[in-house]
């Protein structure tokens, strides 16, 4: 009795061991592909990549036409180069640009008399403005300015004393933030439920958005001077 019981027990244990091993291998094989709930993320990534690739291909075509043109002679080279330079300057914020976009007016909400609550957090800080601008760029804005100060690659939005400085220039409320891009996309991203505007309203800040068919954004006007950064010369 005892012996037969042990034999069958051994057999079952061996089988179970084999099965466990098999099972383990199937599950870990399944892990090498992305889990199914990543489908959405992948689809979005693909969409953004498709757009990216298209943009890049267009620019490459454009650049190669210009480079071909530059190869013809000095006059053509100058022409091609000045067009390209103008494009780079627009991108960098070195020239005045216009286009469709949104204007945001950001200011503290007026105190409600007799509401009984003090809006201690009502002050608009540099962080709030910085977040708005960042969010606009995330939504695909191509140029932005706060109170006439163009936001460039090295522009700060920072509290200095009692003012907020942008490009080293003090600005004062109400803050006008202008951005060029797909107006409804820019506005939509900020107005998402639980998004930035919701958050700012919670802080006692009112933000008013207006879609405009044309806004003008000034150029960055300071003189360009690089004390530390040197171009890396390629061999």
């Amino acid at each position, binding site marked *: 009795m005892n012996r037969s019981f042990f034999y069958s027990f051994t057999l079952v244990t061996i089988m179970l061991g084999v099965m466990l091993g098999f099972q383990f291998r199937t599950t870990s094989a399944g892990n090498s592909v992305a889990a199914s709930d990543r489908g959405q993320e992948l689809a979005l990534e693909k969409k953004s990549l498709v757009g990216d690739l298209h943009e890049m*291909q267009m620019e490459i075509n454009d650049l190669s036409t210009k480079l071909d043109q530059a190869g013809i002679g000095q006059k053509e080279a100058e022409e091609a180069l000045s067009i390209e330079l103008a494009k780079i300057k627009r991108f960098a914020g070195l020239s005045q640009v216009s286009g469709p976009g949104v204007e945001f007016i950001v200011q503290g909400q007026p105190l409600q008399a007799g509401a009984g609550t003090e809006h201690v957090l009502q002050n608009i800080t540099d962080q709030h403005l910085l977040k708005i601008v960042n969010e606009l760029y995330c939504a695909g804005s191509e140029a932005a300015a706060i109170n006439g100060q163009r936001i460039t690659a090295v522009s700060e939005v920072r509290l200095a004393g009692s003012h907020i400085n942008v490009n080293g220039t003090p600005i004062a409320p109400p803050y006008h933030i202008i951005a060029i891009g797909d107006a409804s996309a820019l506005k939509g991203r900020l107005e998402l439920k639980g998004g930035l505007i919701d958050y700012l309203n919670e802080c006692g800040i009112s933000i008013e958005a207006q879609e405009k068919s044309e806004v003008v954004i000034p150029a960055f006007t300071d003189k360009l001077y690089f004390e530390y950064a040197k171009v890396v010369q390629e061999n």
Partner: protein
Amino acid sequence: MTVFNKLKIFYWSIALVSIILGIIFSVQYRIARDIQYIDSILRTQELTVQVDQMKKERDVLQAQLTRMRGQFENLSTGPLAPEIKEGIEPAFIFAGVTEVSGSGVEVTLQDSSALHEPAENPNFYIVHDEDILKVVNELKAAGAEAVAVNEQRLTATTGISCSGPAISLNNKALVPPFVITAVGSPEILAGALNMRGGVVEFLQFCGIEVSVKKLEKITIPAYTGSIKSDYISERDNNDIREGLI
């Protein structure tokens, strides 16, 4: 108990075990097979392959773009009108479309490694887009001339956003540790970050591991993406004077 009886028990138990094993095996087999053929997994696999391939394609195009922009920059050494010639280098540096080097700082931000209570929100201990934004803003205020995060050059239109545990910037997903590099005066840049009540102190208070290194030479790569101008167009100052707005 007789020998016969013993044998009988043995056979019965073997039979039972075999039946159970048979059922388990067939179920197991079917599940394993089904997993391979579930639609969503197939689709995900296909998408993964496509996305990977497109990423490779993007890298190729980016390299091409960078090379072509470099060719344009090299044209400036040729015989050209001086106003174009002198305009090129500063504009390219300022726009971020050329690689630069110089003295500067390297700031590393890492999620907190300290163990925290299970009831606490783990979000408090990881690096957010906002934290990077703060550090970058501080560097710019302290006069940084070029800034990059994990080798991605920041341009005028770069937005920093959160996408799950990664941070998205210039359409690239970056993962921790985040290394922010900036060219400028190492003393001023590091000083601005390490200031009392400054951004480093704040981040450390949040449990994020921050290190600031002053470097004699640091290289910041060029922006490799495309320059979009679907919506902006240039406007001359003349238009304003003529009252066209």
